C-alpha cells in the first residue's frame, strides 16, 4: 500500500478528478481522507499501486488545474507514514524506473 497526500484548492470537481485518476486505473481506494489544510484542502489516499503507477498518478494529479502539491508516502506497512515529496521542482519524469539521463550517460 502506498500513501499519497495531495494538496488542492477545493474547487468544483477537483477532489473527484483526483479520485478519478485512481478509479480509471481500476485501483481500489481503501482509504480516503479529505480535509481542510491551512488555506486549502488535502486528501490522503491509500492505494495499492505498482512503482510505475506512482509516477503516472502523481503526474496525472499534478495536471489537474487546482492541485497544488503531490506527495508520495512510503509503503504503509514498511514505514507507517508519509515521507516528504519529490526532491525536484515537479514530479519526476521517470519516477518508476529511477534512471536519470546522467546515469544513462555513465
Amino acid at each position, binding site marked *: 500500500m502506498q500513501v499519497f497526500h495531495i494538496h488542492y484548492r477545493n474547487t468544483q470537481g477537483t477532489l473527484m478528478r483526483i479520485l478519478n485518476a485512481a478509479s480509471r486505473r481500476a485501483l481500489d481506494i481503501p482509504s480516503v481522507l479529505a480535509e481542510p489544510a491551512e488555506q486549502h484542502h488535502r486528501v490522503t489516499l491509500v492505494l495499492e499501486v505498482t512503482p*510505475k503507477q506512482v509516477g*503516472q498518478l502523481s503526474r496525472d494529479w499534478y495536471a489537474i488545474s487546482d492541485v497544488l502539491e503531490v506527495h508520495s508516502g512510503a509503503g504503509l506497512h514498511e514505514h507507517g507514514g508519509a515521507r516528504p515529496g519529490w526532491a525536484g521542482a*515537479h514530479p519526476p519524469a521517470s519516477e518508476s524506473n529511477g534512471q536519470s539521463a*546522467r546515469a544513462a*550517460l555513465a
Partner: protein
Amino acid sequence: MLKGADIVLQCLRAEGVDLVFGYPGGAIMPLYDALEGSGVRHVLTRHEQGAVFAAEGFARVTGKVGVAIATSGPGATNLVTGIADAKMDSVPLVCITGQVRSALIGTDAFQETDVFGVTLSLTKWSRLVKTLDEIPEVIAEGFYWARSGRPGPVVIDIPTDMLKAKKEFSGPVKFTPQVRAADTKAEGGFADTIVALLQKAQRPVALVGAGAKLSGAIPELRRLLDDLNIPSFATVHGLGAVPPQSPYYLGMVGMHGTRAANMALHETDLLLVFGARLDDRVTGDPTRFAPQARIIHFEIDPAQLDRVRACDQAVIGDLADTIPAFHAELRKPPTHSTSSGQASRKTGETWGTQIPDFREWRAIACGPERAELDPRGLAQPTIRFLDELFSRLPEDSVVIADVGQHQMWAAQRYRSSSPRGFITSGGLGAMGFALPAAVGVQLAKPETCVLCVSGDGGFQMNIQELATVHRLGLPIKMVIIDNKYLGMVRQWQQLFYQRNYAETDLSDNPDFVEIAKAYRIQAERLNEAAMREFPVSTETGDLIDSFLHSPEPELLVFDCHPEANVFPMVPAGAALSEMMLEED
C-alpha cells in the same frame, strides 16, 4: 442591466470568438434568443455530435478555441464523444451547455443530466455555474485552460435561469492562474546532456508528434532536423511537420507505419521524441519498443510521460522554447567535454547508410515510385485513387480523414508539408468525425480546398451534416471509399478471427449518390476499374480535377474492393519489427 445570456456572448467575443457551432433546445434557448446582434455567428448542425466535431475541425485547423453549444440532457450527452476526442488529440474546445433551472437540479427533471459529472474524466476543466456573478470569471478561466499548456476540452454548464436573469455587467475579465510551486520549465542544463547523448549514439532517430505543431515550433523543428540529419518520422498527428521530401524523412510510424520508420525505430539507440504521447498504436508491444534506445522526451505536459514506456530524460516545456535551446547547444563550437553539431550531423549521415536496405525502405516509404505493399493487389486501385487525388490537390489544401482503412491509406499516401493539412481523429478513433470536422475547417478556411475522406461506415454516422454543407454552400469535396464493409474491423476479422465477418457486412448500404442528391449535393461514382490503368486515363483525370476544383460541394463515391487490406500492419501486441507485409 444585461441578461446572463448576453453576458456569456460578450465574454465569448472578448475571448475572440466570432463563430460557434450548436443545436438549440429548451434549457439553452435564452442563449439562442440573445445571438442576434451579438457578433457571434452560430452555425446550426443537424446533431450535437456534428456541432462538436465541427468545432474541433475549426480548432484543429486554426489553433484557436472551438466552441460548441448544446442544450441540457441529450443535447449535452451528444457532445461527449467530441469532448473525449478533443481530450485525446489535445484540441482546444469549449462546450457550453444549458442546464435545467437551478431549483430543479438533482430532481431528475425533464432533460436533466449531470453533464458536469458525465464529462469530469474527459475534460481538462469544467464548471457548473452557480451564480450569475461568476459567469465572466468562469468563461475567462475556461478559455484559459482550453488553450494553455497541452490544449484540451472544457465544459461550462449554465442553468437556464442564470441565462435569463439580469445584472449589472462591468465587462469581461481576464484570468490569471496562480503559479504553483512546482510549475517549472526545463532549465538549460538539459541541452548539453542531450548533445552528449547524441555524441555517444550510433543510431539516433527523431519521432515527431502533434505537440510540435501545437507549439507552433515547426520552423524551429525543421531547422533542427536539417542540422541533425538523422532518420525522422511522424505519428499520424505529426504528419506534415517534416517535409516529406526531406532526405532523412521515413514517413509515418506505428501500426500502419512504413517499414523504414518502424525498423529504424526498432534499431535505434537514441530516440528523440518531439511532442508525442507514445501511445500503443505507435509503440506496439511497449516492452519491445525501441529496445536498445535511450529516450529523450520533449513534452509540454508531464502527465504524458512514461505512460507506456519510460523515458531516460524528459524535457518539460513548450517545444517553442526547448527546441531552440537544444539547437543552440548543438550548434556551439566543440569543446573537449561536449559534442558539436558537426559531430552529430556526421553521426546521422553514417547511421542512415548503416540501416540494412535503408535506401530501399526510404524509397518505398517516400520515394516517387512508392511501391505498394499489397501482394494481392486488392488495395492498389484505392491507393492509386488517393495518390491521384492528393497529387492534384492545390497547395495548402486540408485533408480530413475519418476512421478506418481509408484513414490509414490516406495517412500513408499524404505528401503535404502543411503542418495543419491532415486532420483526423487519431487518439479516440471516432467514426463519423470527418464530415462535420470538414464543415468547421471549411468555415475557418473559406478559400482553401477541403477534402473529406470517409468510409461507407463512418460517413453514415454523421451523414445528416450533408444538410449543413448544403445550407452553407460549403465547397467541401467529399470522398467515400466504399468497400461495403466496416473495413478495418473486417481486416482484423480476416487476419485474427478466421474470416468470421461478424456484423461487418454493409453490402446493403444505401445509394450514396442518390442520398447526396436528396440533400441537393452533386455526386458521382467512380469504379475502381478506372484506377487499374496507370497513368490514369484523361477522362478519369479530368473527372478528378473537375471534382476537386468545383466551387460547389461534391461527393465522389469510390468503389473499393471489399477485401482490400492496409499494409504494413503491426498486429496488436506485437513489436514494431514484427510488421505484417502481406496476409499470410
